[in-house]
């Protein structure tokens, strides 16, 4: 067993033999790159000048007033392409270039990671192919068009359930065939080692900035840091610099879909059992035969049956806590943020907001209104909601949604 590939009992490299040397090469190149001043300088240059970092840590005044505690929003929605995904894509694409690769491939569900990858590929003149389930292509026509405008080829995947997990399988298959000249850019904190490690590294700018910003604003650390979890990339980036600050509660919010009890949810931590998918061992939604179960969530970005291995470890070790929020709760929070703060969040991020509001109420009840007012929390607003307007309209019209 390769111990460094594991987070406790989770992680590993469950891939075909053809990919084992590829993963070793990626790991060696990554370790070298992140210890190379020139690489870091280049990466941070693009984060600043192209992505628009650092992003604000915004004090949500009206929301805080209403819920009786200080709520800060880490504004990843203000990044170029509208979400945190670009942080990781730029890191991986610079690494791919450094390794001499000419082509990149990616999987995408809702299309956000696909758009971010297509963006990075255009910027660095790489050939880009994005694998997307046939069902998702129908649901996300706008993002398909964005990717194509950016010069990427979008491949429709027709196998299994025709959604994200199948697109990921197809990307893995293509990668196994073409790894000699192609780099696979994984969008979430999932996959075989070293991917979870790389994604964490490239997303950790979120917490590095946030920690500095909260200390400037409050002079002390927050009570809690809250982020939504599908595969868990924005959450691991939001947690990274707070992992050692044990007095800060770390809370990951999964999608409870129509309710955990209905079986139609995407909460791998709530009911999943350890399993192996997409090259990693982690919590996984499975049926009684060990086949992977489809996840359900109104938010396409949280609609994933597994979860990143470090989250599985943080859950079991007790360092982080994972909760779940239903579609309805997330949509209520989304509307509230629109009305109180003038921010339309992605439905994914609205899950984190929903739990934060609950947390604020509990805090006031537990510690009293006066004490609660002096405390703060940070919520990762991982993306903006423009992409979700059609889903939101259908939901508000009571039409349900295609999931």
């Amino acid at each position, binding site marked *: *067993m*390769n111990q460094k*590939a594991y987070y406790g009992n989770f992680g*590993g*490299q*469950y*891939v*075909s*033999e*053809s990919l*084992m*040397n*590829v993963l070793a090469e990626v790991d060696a190149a990554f370790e070298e790159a992140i210890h190379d001043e020139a690489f870091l300088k280049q990466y941070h240059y693009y984060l600043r000048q192209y992505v628009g970092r650092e992003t604000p840590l915004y004090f949500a005044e009206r929301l805080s007033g209403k819920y009786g505690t200080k709520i800060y929003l880490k504004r990843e929605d203000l990044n170029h392409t509208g979400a945190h995904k670009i942080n990781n894509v730029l890191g991986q694409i610079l690494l791919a270039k450094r390794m001499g690769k000419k082509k990149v491939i990616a999987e995408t569900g809702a299309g956000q990671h696909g758009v971010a990858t297509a963006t990075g590929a255009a910027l660095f003149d790489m050939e880009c192919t994005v694998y997307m389930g046939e069902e998702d292509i129908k649901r996300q026509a706008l993002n398909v068009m964005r990717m194509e405008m950016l010069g990427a080829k979008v491949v429709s995947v027709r*196998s*299994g359930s025709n959604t994200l*997990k*199948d697109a990921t*399988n197809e990307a*893995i*298959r*293509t990668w*196994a*065939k*073409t*790894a*000699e000249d192609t780099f696979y850019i994984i969008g979430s904190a999932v996959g075989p080692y070293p991917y979870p490690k790389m994604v964490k590294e490239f997303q950790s700018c979120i917490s590095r900035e946030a920690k500095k910003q909260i200390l400037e604003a409050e002079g002390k650390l927050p009570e809690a840091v809250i982020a939504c979890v599908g595969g868990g990339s924005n959450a691991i980036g939001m947690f990274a610099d707070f992992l050692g600050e044990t007095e800060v509660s770390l809370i990951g919010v999964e999608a409870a879909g129509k309710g955990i009890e209905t079986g139609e949810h995407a909460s791998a931590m709530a009911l999943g*059992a*350890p*399993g*192996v*998918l*997409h*090259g990693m*061992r982690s919590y*996984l939604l*499975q049926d009684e*035969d*060990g*086949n*992977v179960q489809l996840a359900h969530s109104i938010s396409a970005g949280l609609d994933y049956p597994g979860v990143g291995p470090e989250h599985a470890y943080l859950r079991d070790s007790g360092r982080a806590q994972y909760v779940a929020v239903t579609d309805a709760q997330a949509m209520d929070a989304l509307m509230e943020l629109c009305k109180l703060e003038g921010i339309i969040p992605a439905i994914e991020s609205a899950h984190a907001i929903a739990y934060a509001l609950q947390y604020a109420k509990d805090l006031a009840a537990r510690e009293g209104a006066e004490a609660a007012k002096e405390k703060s929390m940070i919520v990762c607003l991982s993306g903006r909601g423009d992409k979700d307007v059609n889903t939101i309209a259908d939901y508000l019209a009571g039409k349900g949604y295609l999931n």
Partner: protein
Amino acid sequence: MNRIEAKMQQLQQAGEKAFITYITAGLPDLEGTKELLKAQERAGCDAVELGIPFSDPAADGPVIQNASYRAICNGINLKNVFSAVEEVRREGLTLPIIFMMYYNTVLHYGVEAFVKKCRETGVDGLIIPDLPLEEQEELQSCLADSEDTILIQLVSPVSGERIPKILDRARGFVYCVSSMGVTGQGADFHKEVMTYLARVKELSKIPVMMGFGIRTAEDVRPMKDVIDGAIVGSHFIQLMEEHDYSIEAAETYCRTFKKELNEL
């Protein structure tokens, strides 16, 4: 002695090449699978890979993906495949059976319980494409170097310096993947296939089998001196689909392949 190892030894003594086929369990149904196994034994196959369907077969191309999907829709799972193996053994089948499966299916069943059940029902070998050398400890410690069930090792054209380490653990035969990527891409072998097979052959104490993309014995003519046999998967499934799982078609194909392979 393990059935696969015994068979391989017997072939080596006779100077014959081995022929192995792959079928997805439960196609057209479990009774049909049992009949196919018997037909392959009659036709002179040396072992059969029996594919346990999984929802996310990331190492397989479209043919086996579709076969796997249909088998799941037919209600096929590890439990009923174990029952079918048990039955077909009771009916006298001695052909070595190798489960080709994904690791999640093993984990979900429970590694220890799975190994015990393999032993009881007569599963002789395991091929698990998403379980590379580094992740095998858990399973190997349950298999405990017994004679009942062995884990077959895979080697790829880009395994390079990993080859000696992999061979160190290998039993039965070593499965050389002919190309990068997934099963069933046609006879479009890796550009370095000859050098790589020769290297494995030189280092290996056990028979070297080649698989992925093989359709006829003729496909492996260029490699005949560096391999000890061939494995046919996707093409065989396709053939079965085209012939509506005809037992006769299966038998003819296997008999012809085996004969031609030994005449190369």
